[in-house]
């Protein structure tokens, strides 16, 4: 390479351009606004989903007890076993035999008999009584 004078050498050096740097790491106001709106939408959607889940779980437990629905009764009403006294009382006070039986049959009473004991009604119902 021939040795150029200062001016020509400067011109040669200036042909080598410094590499461009990366963009400044700043967020524009528009971009920030977009993030804010997106965040608000996400929060609203999450709140709706959470409220929906809570409502779905709460509502069934608030449904009032339906007569003649044994599944519901067992969950929400207090359980009281049918005793002989209760059965006699029902038969005595009911307007008819049929209504007494309906009252006994369709108001299911959960059993609270411990495992090592038996219910008298259950035992008697199995026996064949010859009259």
């Amino acid at each position, binding site marked *: *390479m021939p040795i*150029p004078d200062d001016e020509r050498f*400067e011109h040669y*050096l*200036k042909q080598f351009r*410094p*590499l461009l*740097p*990366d963009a400044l790491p*700043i967020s524009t106001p528009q971009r920030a606004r977009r993030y804010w709106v997106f965040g608000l939408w996400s929060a609203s959607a999450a709140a709706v989903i959470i409220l929906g889940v809570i409502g779905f779980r709460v509502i069934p437990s608030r449904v009032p007890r339906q007569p003649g629905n044994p599944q519901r009764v067992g969950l929400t009403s207090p359980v009281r076993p049918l005793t002989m006294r209760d059965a006699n009382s029902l038969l005595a006070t009911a307007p008819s035999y049929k209504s007494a039986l309906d009252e006994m049959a369709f108001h299911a009473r959960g059993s609270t008999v411990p495992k090592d004991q038996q219910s008298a009604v259950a035992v008697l119902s199995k026996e064949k009584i010859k009259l």
Partner: protein
Amino acid sequence: MDRTEGSRGDIEFLYRQHGAALVLFASTITGERSRAQDAVHQVFLKLIANGDLSRAQDKKAYLFACTRNAVLNERKFQDRHEPLEMDAAWFSPPHRDIAGERNLRRALAALPDDQREIVVLHIWGDLTFAQIADLLSINSNTAASRYRYALGKLRDEMSAKENSCADPR
């Protein structure tokens, strides 16, 4: 557009205009281009957040001064003086002259620090000797003489490299 947006826009424009030369200048001091770029970014982000360039008489020289201060402070904080990075490119070579770019980079690295700074500020930063003298706190005649000396050394270094490549002996 309000005043803050205008000044921020001005600062971003100055970054696009002088960013490359500023990063090159910082690279010749730090030895690492990535650290140099970080330093330049810090300067501009600080200007956008807090600063106002309207009071600076010479904005370009002011930016070079800020960059130099940022780099020297960072080097003092890190308590190290790294040798200049030889592998990463500093320039976009003309006519894909990659060997020429490497040759130039190594010739610049071989210069003493003060001479290297003056050469980069004058050739790629386009600063006058008066501006350089102000920035480096030296006399303008001192700046000019150091520049001529440095340019001669650069030329000799690059010529020697070219000749050694031509003559495989």
